[in-house]
């Protein structure tokens, strides 16, 4: 395993050094050093219906040094590349914010900083990920440990055996890098994976030992699931053939979280190959549920303008074109209300664990 890591690192480092060569060659030929960066936007994303995931197109934008508008970004890209190669050589992993601090300094003889805020350095790291076709993990950049897992699952992490069934109600905090080289799945006896949007609902299910009764792995990403959580779900899905169900709020953002898990995100479409779970199912909260589960109207929240605009955007996305989905979103728009998962507590604190999910699973009431 150590060996594979070594070779991989080697290639990434080579790619980073390639950027320096690009500048040197261009300078020798008296040309403007220019790098091509794939565009990370909806315009450069296609939905592959056969594979059921988002794929990045081939559109690229040129970033050249001798262009007033791009000069600073070009310089910043070189600085980030330098910092990343330093990580490679030292075999360290780091956070986005540390990269920002590492590359920030005041340019000689001026009042100008290389970076003013982290908002400037983060997109550059993503630029490098896509243009070098290297995963963030391969670049040794980790995100926050943003999720938790509990269930009949045994993991190996840095040689430690982690039995996710014996971690109380807190569970195991999912690291941002869960590649086999880092986290090993030793055993999994669950029947399915339940990915919950909100930590509060995950806590409820964990506390009620829902996973034990229904033999599942409970995952949460506290909002938009971070890469580690998505990757872990994908590995469980792929390696243990477990179906994945997604439980989110009934609002446009919930729908989008589901779609990111299923097809991948627009911003990092190139990672869908490795992250997306095209067979993931949307278990709730559906816009049909309030009626079916007799949620009173007064626990709904009125859709605001942003919600409505976002829902209309979703209606146009290629991957929401299935009639069931169109109906689902339109139903929400017609009702003018959104519902939080927490609203289920209106009926009973344990309504989610004892009534809602059991009935959903029994009726196989989910959207694809």
């Amino acid at each position: 395993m150590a060996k594979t890591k070594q070779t991989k690192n080697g290639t990434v480092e080579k790619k980073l050094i390639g950027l320096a060569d690009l500048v040197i060659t261009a300078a020798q030929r008296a040309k403007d050093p220019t790098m091509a960066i794939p565009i990370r936007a909806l315009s450069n994303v296609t939905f592959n219906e056969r594979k059921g995931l988002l794929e990045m197109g081939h559109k690229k934008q040129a970033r050249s040094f001798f262009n007033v508008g791009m000069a600073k970004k070009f310089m910043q890209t070189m600085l980030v590349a330098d910092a990343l190669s330093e990580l490679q050589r030292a075999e360290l992993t780091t956070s986005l914010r540390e990269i920002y601090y590492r590359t920030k300094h005041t340019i000689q003889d001026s009042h100008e900083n290389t970076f003013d805020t982290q908002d400037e350095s983060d997109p550059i790291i993503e630029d490098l990920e896509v243009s070098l076709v290297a995963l963030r993990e391969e670049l040794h950049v980790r995100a926050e440990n943003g999720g938790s897992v509990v269930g009949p699952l045994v993991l190996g992490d840095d040689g430690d055996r982690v039995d996710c069934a014996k971690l109380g109600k807190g569970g195991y905090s999912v690291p941002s890098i869960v590649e086999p080289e880092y986290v090993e799945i030793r055993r999994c006896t669950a029947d399915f994976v339940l990915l919950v949007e909100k930590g509060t609902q995950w806590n409820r299910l964990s506390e009620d030992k829902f996973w034990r009764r229904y033999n599942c792995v409970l995952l949460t990403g506290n909002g938009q699931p971070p890469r580690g959580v998505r990757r872990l779900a994908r590995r469980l899905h792929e390696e243990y053939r477990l179906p994945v169900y997604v439980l989110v709020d009934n609002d446009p953002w919930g729908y989008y979280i589901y779609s990111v898990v299923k097809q991948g995100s627009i911003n990092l479409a190139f990672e869908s190959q490795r992250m997306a779970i095209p067979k993931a199912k949307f278990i709730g909260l559906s816009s049909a549920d309030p009626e079916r589960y007799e949620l009173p109207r007064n626990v709904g929240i009125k859709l605001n303008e942003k919600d409505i605009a976002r829902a209309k955007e979703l209606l146009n996305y290629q991957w929401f074109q299935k009639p069931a989905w169109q109906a689902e979103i339109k139903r929400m728009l017609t009702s003018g209300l959104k519902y939080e998962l927490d609203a289920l507590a209106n009926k009973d604190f344990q309504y989610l664990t004892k009534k809602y999910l059991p009935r959903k699973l029994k009726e196989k009431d989910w959207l694809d």
Partner: protein
Amino acid sequence: MATHKPPVSAAKSVFPSKIPPQPPASKKTGPRADSAVTAVEMGARQREISVSEFFTKNRHLLGFDNPRKALLTCVKEAVDNALDACEEAGILPEVTVQLEVVATGPSAVPPVSQATRFRITVTDNGPGIVRQQIPRIFAKLLYGSKFHRLRMSRGQQGIGISAAGMYGQLTTGKPVKIISRTGPKAAAHYFEVQIDTKKNEPLVHENKQIQWEQPRGTQVAIEVEGRYQKGRASVDEYLEQTSIANPHVRLIYRTPEGDTKEYPRAYHELPPSPKEIKPHPYGIEFGMLLKMLHEAKSQTLSSFLSSEFCRVTPALADEMCIAAKVSPKAKPRDIRGAIAETLYQTIQATKIMAPPTNCLSPIGEKAILSGLYKQIKGEFYTAVSRPPSVYRGNPFIIEAGLAFGKAPDGATKPEKPAMPLAEGEQEEGDSELARVIRYANRVPLLYQQSACATFKAVLATTWRNYGIAQSRGALPAGPMVIFVHIASVWVPFTSESKEAIAEYDEIHKEITLALRECGRRLGLFLRRRERAASEFRRRNIFELYIEEVVEACNRLKGGKLPTEKLKAQLHKIASSRTGGIKTDETLGKTGAGPEGLPHSIIVTADGIEGDAPPTPHVSRTIVPVTEVPDGIRIEENRPSSKPGRRQTAKPAPAKRGARRDAAVPSFAKMGSVAQPAGAVRTRRKAQLTRKKR
């Protein structure tokens, strides 16, 4: 009340609308019964009051409201008089102002900030005053030469200096001390005078001949209660502003702290002496007309009209008489009542030529420029003199000037070390607002700015059009001084203390036009500078970043990169991509300035505009040498700038070159000696009597 103000009823009679004061009323009676006073009793109390008494009580009307302002007013009156006298006598003024702290009682001299009593000594090199006139000029209110004629001067009524003396007398009990000498062969006279406030007559305490080192001139010393404080509306500010609007004056100021400041003469030419004019028919009120008719010396109405008013020809006079259905041959004294009123209305309805404007003496664009340039550190100066205009029959001229920026000052300061900025921190922006300096007949106006027509016009001007930020209803923002001057035979002040100019439509319009012209020129300058700066920034960006990129590449390559070579290669690309040598020239890189601007006086900042520079002085290519372009752009290091170092972006076409030659030397000359050729001006030798307001 009664004890405090003995001449109470008399004073009140000035304001007839007020109720006559009641004597101490006998207790519980109603207001009517016992306390009533008979007309006879009242009549016994009614008596005349003298002007001096009136102003003793109402000193705020003359600008003596508080000790600080009083000190300023005294200096101001003395300096204004000195300047008026010198100019009228055709002498380039040299005025020394000295402020000294005076101890009160037996105690030691207090520090300046604590001091409450000052001696003000103002010395000039003017014509001096004949001996007989000295007491009355300095110790009699409303005595002077300026009130009865329509001619532009600083003082108007003849109150100022005697009021200052009176204030001194009132607060310190000390007389005004005067030394005056009318020429090297005449003796110097020393006077100590006070004013008899009851009679408004001078009281001479001391009168002797003395030895005086000055061959000619006048010195006034007044001791007053006052407060000395720097800052807004201070003596210092007044003197500084005086020196801006009067660059022909050499002003020496000895501060109470014992320092000596000199405001040198920057302009070696006296302002043209204004002519006296007769009143214009439009400016006359009905009552005034009646009085004039009554006092007329002329035999016929027609000759009265044509001789007593300006711009009325005998033919026009006849025409007006006929239109008013009066005989042109009628005796002026016989015109009364309804006939007079018809005549008055006819005159107002008749189309009469605007009054002559040679009664005005504008400062002149050239002099304003040198004044601003001398006192205010800036990068760009411009001045506009409007053509004369008329309000209510009084001719006036508006002049505006503008000084922008602070580069020369900043350039001398050592560049402060680059301080890295933390996240969320920003480079300190300039939130400074423009400063407005206002003048009426060359006298700075320091109080009541917001009530003044000039200030309102500055606010009403849309400075944003000229690239200057301006919040709603506020002054424009930026390092800028806006200069506005009104010259008129009769400046319409809003009050007797002469602090703000009244807002006549005609005046407002003229000020606005002048300001807009200044603004346009400033906008032009700013745009040009911005263009040059952005080119520079473009290049600069690459130069800044090349260093970073090369270092990053070097580290990526494991530190084995020939960095100098790579840098040189990149610099070459950068230079070729930003216009190469041509840009170097535009940016003055060859001479290197802080902003890449050449240090010289540039009239046309760059040639991109083509052969027709948009500043309005294009048409002046053929005017005589004495004319100076109205917009002058100055970089640091200016005195040493030689014509050879001057640069324009493009080789100037012959026409522009000629203009430059015409323009620059004359400006350079202002710092040197003589008056420009062709500027011979007739100077009237004024009679050697001191004028006062």
